[in-house]
């Protein structure tokens, strides 16, 4: 066991609540008026869990994640509650937030190059995090940096530690970002589209690193992606967001076996999957676009794009409720949930 692993092994047992988000709403004041980005989102993360968050771009995934990590710009108006092991973060003092940010909740972005400093070696960058947050000596910080680099699967870490970011491939840079993010042993790691800019061959390795972190350090991970393949690969539980709201939430196999919300079903049908469309010539489309809302309507926000929408959907917002047998914690916010388990998409052409 490395020191990193030993430190983690003593932390919380698997399954205890770590993060609790209640009625989180976020809006922005812009030149063009108010943008309501997140609407009354509830979300729990238990320790050692990998939760996947999925939805098209503009659905509020990053804004939700950034409010958790305290990274929103000043133009954001936030209401509701985000508690990290009982400590309220919404409206918390800057000193509390500073400790939480980076140390207890870490955030990794899609594009590693823009978040790394091009003129410092990766060892220096990781070392600085440790010197600041952990008050380590320069020498100890460097040793730990090497350990962290090998933890995230960088070969010959003792040499790589002296590389500059441009000397590394895109996948290696993303690994460095992860090493930096977990340097202080955060309780929660938010990975916002961590593989979107990478090739599938490289993606597989990054997902493996995230899984290892959970298995070896017990890190709780929120993975944001628009790729259902990534979700299928790594998530224990899935949260589907649409136009600022959580529309469905379920353990991963339940969600794919039976999506209840019409939007989830649409996303699944639209995803190209090798083999799924063999012999058919078309993918299912979801007509229309994610709306940009200034006020949250008392209606289902998917109604304009939904094949099953009726008057009720336009007159009242469906609550997020238990669906199915209720043996599992499967929730959906839909007045007319999809009935039978998913069938293969219909052939529209011969």
């Amino acid at each position, binding site marked *: 066991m490395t020191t990193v692993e030993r430190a983690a092994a003593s932390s919380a047992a698997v399954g205890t609540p770590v993060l609790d988000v209640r009625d989180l709403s976020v809006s922005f004041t812009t030149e063009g008026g108010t943008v309501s980005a997140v609407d009354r989102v509830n979300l729990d993360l238990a320790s050692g869990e990998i939760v996947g968050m999925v939805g098209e771009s503009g659905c509020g995934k990053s804004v939700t994640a950034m409010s958790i990590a305290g990274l929103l710009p000043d133009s954001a108006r936030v209401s509701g509650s985000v508690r990290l092991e009982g400590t309220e973060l919404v409206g918390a003092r800057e000193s509390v937030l500073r400790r939480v940010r980076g140390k207890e909740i870490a955030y990794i972005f899609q594009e590693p190059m823009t978040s790394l400093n091009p003129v410092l070696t990766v060892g220096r960058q990781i070392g600085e995090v440790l010197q600041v947050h952990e008050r380590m000596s320069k020498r100890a910080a460097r040793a730990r940096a090497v350990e962290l680099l090998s933890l995230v699967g960088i070969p010959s870490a003792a040499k790589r530690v002296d590389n500059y970011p441009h000397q590394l491939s895109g996948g290696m840079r993303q690994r460095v970002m992860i090493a930096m993010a977990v340097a202080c042993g955060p309780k929660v790691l938010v990975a916002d589209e961590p593989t979107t800019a990478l090739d599938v061959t490289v993606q597989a390795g990054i997902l493996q690193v995230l899984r290892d972190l959970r298995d070896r350090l017990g890190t709780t991970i929120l993975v944001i992606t628009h790729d259902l393949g990534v979700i299928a690969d790594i998530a224990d539980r899935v949260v589907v967001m649409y136009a600022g709201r959580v529309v469905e939430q379920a353990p991963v196999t339940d969600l794919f076996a039976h999506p209840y919300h019409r939007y989830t079903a649409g996303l699944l049908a639209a995803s*190209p999957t090798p083999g799924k469309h063999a012999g058919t010539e078309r993918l299912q489309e979801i007509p229309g676009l994610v709306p940009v809302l200034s006020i949250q309507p008392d209606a289902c926000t998917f109604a304009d794009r939904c094949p099953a929408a009726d008057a009720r959907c336009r007159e009242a917002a469906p609550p997020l409720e238990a669906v199915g047998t209720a043996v599992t914690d499967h929730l959906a916010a839909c007045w007319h949930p999809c009935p039978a388990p998913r069938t293969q998409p219909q052939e529209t052409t011969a």
Partner: protein
Amino acid sequence: MTPQPNALELEDLVMHFGPVRAVDGITLTIPKGRVTALVGESGSGKSTVGRCVVRLEKPTAGVVRIAGTDVTQLTRRQLRQHRNDVSIVFQDPAGSLDPRMLVGEIVAEPLRLSGKRITRRDREARVAEELGRVGLRAEVARRYPHELSGGQRQRVSIARALISEPKLLIADEPTSALDVSVQASVLNLLADLQRDIGFACLFITHDLSAVEYLADDIAVMYLGQLVEQGPRERIFTRPAHPYTQALLAAAPVADPVRQRQRQPVLLGDDLPSALDPPSGCRFRTRCPLAFDRCAAEVPAQVAFGGGLAACHLVQPDGTRPDVRAAADSSEVLS
């Protein structure tokens, strides 16, 4: 000229940027009206191939033949005659559409550049027709690109590319920047147009799953060279080259039960530099099956029933090992 010239023939195409060997000897044929997908990781040289075909780059060596005409050595002026034979659509519609031009002007531009005389009225009618064909209303002609969504902008690029009725369309990652739902509609649109109009297409993508129902044939590129070619069906069901097998194994399937049974084939991240490609087989530094001979000898393209593959382990009768051998039977296609 032969009666049915191929839409595209590349013979030993080479494109070096100084020491960067971006494309290093590609031979590829696309018959009239067929779709070939060019797949591979980023940096493998796919876009450079596309740019050589539309002559945004002048190849270092080799031959590019479009609809039977060798365009490799033509001057800019001579090329004008052939401008209408081939069009290109890029990944990023925002970057490839001039923000100061109205959509109508953008779509009509190829007509203007072709130098053919056409009345304004006819031109507007053609633009409206083309917009209709890509599923946009005629009013969109009076808007600016930034007023449109990403999917709509990509439709505008497609309309512009098709207005000159090209025999060949180069589509360079046309859906990679789009959300899945929008990607589905753009892929469907391209498939419909291709079937109705019958243009040939070189569909460039790093995403194998996007080509399954669009491509007739697939060519797999690695560090400037083709490692495998063949009909789509065969590539998906019986990939011959270890790199193709690894690519298929790496793309996650949107089914947690199947996905978690699969055995990952991890290649490590380092796509070697195109400045100094490995000796012998260029894939050897990442190939799980590499052996002594791979460093010493460049593998020849072996023709077998289902196409071509360049690997020492692929036999002329098509037998070959599978790097996914340890994976379960539900692998890729079940």
